[in-house]
């Protein structure tokens, strides 16, 4: 191929200036773009309205093509299933036998559970759903694992709400438009879900790895508590995800952690359920949280609580010993000296005001 035409604008002063100005604009533009990136990193909600609008405009395009893709990928699946039919059949029969045995045990356990709950007087906190929507697309060319949902703020979807499919947990809403929302999938590397093993109840943190798998981090040191095939469900810790939703299945062990694969494949789940935040009052002061518990989930997020509620004084505890210090907290020297009972339990959300030492 011939050499590319030179960019030099010849001897015309004016043409040279135009080229130079072009570079000035380009470099200035890069600086502005980097500034925008820094703003986005510092405040991820900064361009929420703008990005929400872009999401609204683009989501219908994805939605229209979704059914076609589902049909085409379905063809490949049914062909491969045809060839594997015999072995699949035997395997299914074995699984049916096992499942039938387990079903009886489960029914018994469910009845017992019901009875125990009645005895304790626990109102079954049903996490009611916000809306049902379709997953219409996802990011497939970047390091982030995001999916687009065909429902947005217009249907009551808010950032932070958990999203589940028929098989299990899909992720969490991170930004919303009017008619569409973006979901952070559980396999994204910034997604953390508190889970527990269904086999023995071992608690762990399910952290995405960005390549479609999930790493399970446990607090236990020593022998790895997981076995390949273990199913993990949400534990409800942290108050965002309702407990008992299947999240992942362990595929292999790696040292102290385990690698799991999400149970819900967002590519296959056509419909997704947007749930309310399990305990909206999780971040509120203790008395507020207690009230919220009695009436079931409240549909406000902690950040929406009025400031006077958030800033409310923690009530005096029943513990009357003035020198009492809660365990696992740094003893407060001012408190030790003055022994004020009404401030005996400092909460991390309300730092003690700095007081000069007498």
């Amino acid at each position, binding site marked *: 191929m011939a050499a590319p035409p030179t*960019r030099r604008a010849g001897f015309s002063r004016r043409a040279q200036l135009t080229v130079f100005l072009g570079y000035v604009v380009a470099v200035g533009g*890069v600086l502005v773009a980097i500034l925008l990136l820094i703003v986005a990193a510092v405040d991820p909600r900064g361009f929420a309205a703008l990005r929400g609008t872009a999401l609204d405009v683009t989501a219908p395009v994805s939605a229209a093509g979704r059914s076609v893709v589902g049909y085409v990928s379905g063809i490949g699946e049914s062909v491969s299933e045809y060839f594997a039919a015999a072995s699949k059949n035997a395997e299914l029969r074995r699984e049916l036998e096992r499942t039938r045995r387990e079903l009886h045990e489960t029914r018994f356990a469910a009845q017992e559970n019901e009875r125990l709950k009645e005895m304790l007087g626990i109102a079954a906190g049903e996490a009611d759903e916000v809306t049902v929507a379709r997953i219409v697309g996802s990011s497939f060319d970047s390091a982030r694992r995001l999916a687009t949902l065909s429902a947005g703020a217009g249907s009551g979807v808010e950032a932070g709400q958990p999203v589940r499919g028929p098989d299990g947990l899909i992720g969490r809403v991170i930004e919303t438009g009017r008619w569409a929302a973006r979901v952070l999938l559980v396999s994204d590397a910034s997604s953390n879900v508190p889970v527990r093993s269904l086999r023995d109840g071992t608690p762990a943190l399910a952290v995405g790895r960005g390549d479609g798998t999930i790493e399970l981090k446990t607090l236990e040191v020593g022998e790895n508590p997981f076995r390949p095939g273990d199913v993990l469900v949400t534990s409800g810790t942290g108050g965002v995800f309702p407990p008992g939703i299947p999240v992942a299945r362990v595929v292999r062990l790696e040292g102290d952690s385990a690698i799991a694969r999400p149970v819900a494949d967002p*590519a296959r789940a056509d419909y997704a359920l947007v749930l309310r935040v399990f305990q909206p009052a999780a971040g509120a002061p203790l008395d507020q949280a207690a009230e919220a518990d009695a009436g079931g989930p409240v549909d406000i997020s902690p950040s929406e609580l009025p400031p006077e509620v958030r800033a409310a004084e923690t009530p005096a505890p029943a513990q009357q010993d003035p020198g009492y210090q809660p365990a696992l907290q740094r003893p407060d020297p001012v408190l030790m000296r003055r022994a004020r009972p009404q401030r005996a339990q400092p909460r991390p959300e309300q730092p003690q005001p700095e007081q000069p030492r007498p």
Partner: protein
Amino acid sequence: MTRIAGSDTDVAIRDYKRRFVPLGSTLLASALALLPIVATLPLVPDFGFLVLLSWRLLRPEIWRAHAALGLGLFDDFVSGHPIGQSMALWTILFLILDFVDSRLGFRDYWLDWLLAALAIIFHTAGAWYIATMMGSGVEFSVMVPQIVISILAYPLVARVVLALDRWRLAR
């Protein structure tokens, strides 16, 4: 259409075709990110970037460096990147390629591919770094398959762009 433009309308149509095919094809390729594919692994190349790169290497004279700002902004909006990511990366790349063009006296197929490979590695690494900055701790090894696939896909995309270019300039 005959080889000779018969009227002013014909001239105008051909002029628009000549001028807007590169722009339109790049925007269209960016919009491919809207395809309803739900993937758990970043494997698919960023087609918007590949088409942009092909046009830039094939016809260095059609775009000044600042043209990448607008194209990048569109790509950011459509594919859900943090706003500014493609703007910055694409424009920096155009500036680098301008510099390379001014130093390098010649160009052939293999050199094009080599430049494209370097550009793809730069773009993917930049996008990965920005994602890390935004709090996603993906390991870089996860991105390697996508880089390899993008580098292998470049000649195909370049073919398509070449065909578009011939159609654009056909008389």
